[in-house]
């Protein structure tokens, strides 16, 4: 196994409610690289992300995954996070009554395995809010409580900057965002990359839009739970010209 | 079906078509008690109408929904006195029930509706919505019980009662109850009682729209999408 690979996935298959959603995927992610996974609705992209993070409904029926050289299957959800995995959710849930700041401080302490005072943490948090153009009042609000789609995505990126993972899986971070909101999100990602050049990204998306701001090293097209094409950013050009049909037909040949 | 619509059917009728089982009455002494079983994998629709001068002394129906079956009940009480008891028991796993009701009452009408959504098995769902308007001296009492037994894991239950009081003397009492004996559930109930929103009435008036017209539009919006059955929707339209 290549020691530069932060993530190694081999013949990974996942099912949910006994229906197979990911079939035999293999993927190697080098430290510092950007992978993009695209595909139509129902292709299994999000299922793949959820299974990586360890969602209890997603059962790994075959294959293995290694993060930092450690076999996933032995790790609980929070342990995967502590090993450096971060998942930005497509639809983050609300946790009423738990403020953004207290939640993030708990997460920070768990992942960095350290203690930090409320004052010091809030100072850091407000600095990050400033970087993302997020108003100070944000941090006292209940976690995702009453947040708009754009606000939820911004909070996911705020978490990315605070928790400083080794590999971040961004599940449709661009969906539902207008141009300005998308720019803020991408700027946040850029900051994260700059602060940690070894940060690896797996960006899951339908649309080519986000790729105007982030340069991918590898592009994969998924359909029916399989990766049906892999390559560089030239795949995106083909996608733009011919749609997913082009790849589906190729796969069938 | 024309007879139902044009009101020439004067007494209680039980009418079965491919789509549904109808019970429609404007009898001044209607009594109808029945236990209906929706067998495994079946889908059934029941339509209940009490209207125009009817005195439904006792409509008492128990529905038992078996495994993977689904039940839909649509109820309309319009300008009638009624005492109605609907009990829906989700006995089989993955059974599903939807109960939607409308009442439109005025003058001195009195109506009592009691409903029970009883979840006995796992993965069951029930959804109850009752919406109504009370005008004149009408009096409405709604009591709704949702009971989820210990075996009814992964069940979802919703119950919602919304009433609009249109006159000074109208009165609504709403008693929604929940009894839950297992933790793996989602249960929700709600009751809201109010009148036409002043802001909306004022805005329409400032644009020249008459109060009567806007009230009708607001009522149509209030009751929209409750009934799937065409007959019911025609009846409702005629009333608003």
């Amino acid at each position, binding site marked *: 196994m290549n020691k530069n690979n932060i993530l190694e996935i081999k013949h990974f298959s996942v099912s949910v409610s006994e229906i197979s959603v990911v079939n035999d995927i293999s993927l190697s992610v080098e430290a510092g690289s950007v992978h993009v996974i695209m595909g139509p609705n129902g292709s299994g992209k999000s299922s793949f992300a959820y299974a990586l*993070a*360890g*969602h*209890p409904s997603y059962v790994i029926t075959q294959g293995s995954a290694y993060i930092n050289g450690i076999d996933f299957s032995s790790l*609980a*959800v*929070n342990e*995967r*996070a*502590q090993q450096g995995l971060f*998942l930005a*959710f497509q639809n*983050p*849930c609300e*946790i*009423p*009554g*738990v403020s953004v700041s*207290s*939640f993030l401080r708990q*997460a920070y302490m*768990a*992942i960095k395995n350290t203690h930090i005072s409320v004052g010091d943490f809030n100072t850091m948090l407000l600095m990050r809010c400033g970087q993302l153009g997020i108003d100070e009042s944000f941090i006292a609000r*209940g*976690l995702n409580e009453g947040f708009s789609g754009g606000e939820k995505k911004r909070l996911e990126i705020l*978490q990315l900057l605070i*928790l400083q993972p080794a590999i971040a899986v961004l599940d449709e971070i661009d969906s539902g965002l207008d141009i300005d909101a998308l720019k803020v999100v991408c700027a946040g990602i850029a900051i994260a990359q700059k602060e940690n050049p070894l940060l690896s990204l797996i960006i899951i998306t339908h649309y080519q839009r986000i790729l105007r701001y982030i340069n991918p090293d590898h592009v994969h097209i998924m359909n029916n739970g399989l990766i049906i094409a892999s390559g560089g950013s030239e795949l995106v050009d083909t996608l733009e010209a011919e749609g997913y049909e082009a790849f589906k037909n190729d796969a069938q040949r | 079906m024309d007879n139902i619509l044009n009101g020439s059917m004067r007494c209680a009728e039980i009418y079965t078509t491919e789509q549904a089982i109808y019970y429609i009455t404007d009898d001044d002494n209607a009594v109808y008690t029945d236990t209906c079983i929706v067998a495994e994998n079946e889908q059934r629709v029941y339509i209940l109408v009490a209207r125009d001068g009817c005195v439904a002394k006792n409509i008492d129906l128990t529905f038992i929904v078996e495994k993977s079956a689904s039940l839909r009940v649509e109820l309309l009480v319009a300008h009638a006195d009624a005492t109605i008891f609907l009990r829906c028991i989700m006995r089989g796993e993955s059974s599903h029930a939807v109960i939607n009701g409308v009442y439109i009452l005025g003058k001195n009408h009195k109506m009592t509706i009691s409903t029970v959504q009883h979840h006995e098995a796992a993965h069951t769902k029930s959804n109850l919505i009752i919406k109504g308007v009370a005008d004149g001296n009408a009096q409405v009492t709604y009591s709704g019980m949702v009971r*989820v037994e*210990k075996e009814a*894991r992964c069940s979802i239950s919703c119950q919602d009662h919304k*009433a609009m*009081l*249109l006159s*000074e003397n*109208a*009165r*609504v*009492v*709403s*008693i*929604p*109850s*929940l*009894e*839950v*004996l*297992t*933790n*793996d*559930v*989602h*249960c*929700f*109930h*709600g*009751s*809201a*009682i*109010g*009148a036409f929103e002043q802001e909306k009435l004022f805005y329409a008036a400032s644009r020249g729209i008459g109060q009567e017209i806007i009230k009708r539009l607001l009522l149509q919006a209030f009751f929209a999408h409750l009934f799937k059955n065409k007959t019911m929707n025609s009846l409702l339209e005629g009333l608003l």
Partner: protein
Amino acid sequence: MTHNDKDTLQSYIFRTKKGLNRDIVIQISEQKNEPSWMIDFRLKALSIFEEKPMPSWGADLKDLDPDDIFYYVKPLESQHTTWDDVPERIKTTFEKLGIPQAEQKFLAGVGAQFESEMIYKNLKKRWADQGVLFMDMSTALREHEALVKKYFSTIIPPHDNKFAALNSAVWSGGSFVYVPAGVRIDMPLQAYFRIDASQMGQFERTLIIAEPGSFVEYVEGCSAPIYKKNSLHSAVVELIAHENAHIRYITIQNWSNNIYNLVTKRAVAYKNAHVEWVDGNFGSKVTMKYPCIVLKEPGAKGSIISLAVAGKGQHQDSGGKIIHCAPHTRSHIVAKSMSKEGGRSTYRGLLKVIKGAHNVHSRVQCDALIFDDESRTDTYPTIDIRENNGDIGHEASVSKVSDEQLFYLMSRGLNEQSARALIVNGFIDAFVQLLPMEYAVEINRLIAMEMEDSIG
């Protein structure tokens, strides 16, 4: 058992007999040197208590035998349980909550007063300077008879219910608070400071009068479990908020789980007045308590925020009642409950809008968290609206700690226990926010302990 303890136990038994009768009631009144109208009041209440049947609704009271109870034990003696008698679980709780040794003994009913007497003397002077009266009920009856007589039992008459009648007959201890017009008391009055030994008595009677424009926050009870041998507690609390006055009454109850805690609490809010009941129910075997607010004049506002935790063998049967008697009144009820390890929590509520009370705004929200399928939760609200021009909403939900929320928090590095604890903290937040800070800290610790126990 030491020689002293044995003496005490004997005098304890000698003083009282079990059961209730006229003689005991008269004895109680004479001990306190009460005026004759109070003796009459007590005796009339006794007849009412004897006539009324046990309630046919609510929690299960079949194990409660009114004849098997000591109705009056002279205050000092009621404290003399030995430290050895106090159950182990309670001693451990004290330690975990960080309560010092002397306090532990006091709370368990063993020691006598301690250093807070100094604090109390200073505060007493401060209040006296403002014209505020804060003392135990019997002292108030002796020193301010006319004032007490004007309001006593005007909100909760003895025939209100069987246990109000009982309390009316045998009441002892409890607080009397009078706040003159325009006075805003800047720190919470704590029942704790009322250093008379019977402050955690069985049949407390509390009366708070807030004159126009005044403000008082009153806190009673504590999160540390109170162990008592006597198993029936039946308190009565009456609040009167005159025009523009504001009363906030906070109760934290954590009685040991052999106790039947049956309480009648009611407030009347006059024009533009504001009454808040903040109620935390953590202990007891059975609690039946439905704080009530009567919004009597236009502009009055009422809110009831409660939290009930029902663990093994417990039934918390609580809720709130609000009656809108006048137009332009507002009410708000938030009732949160948690049921675990076979516990049962029940919400019983009444929201009533009488004819003529137009432009009423009311929101009721009941949320129940149920942890396992041994436990149970019920919600029984009644909404009775007789006026068309109002905006009334009620919502209730029941669920368990959601897997989605757990997954989200764990994916950010928290282990399962911390994730659950954080979610529960969020759930009770609406309640904890309203408590004075020291209480908030204690409650959070108490909940954390409860959670630890149940996860094991």
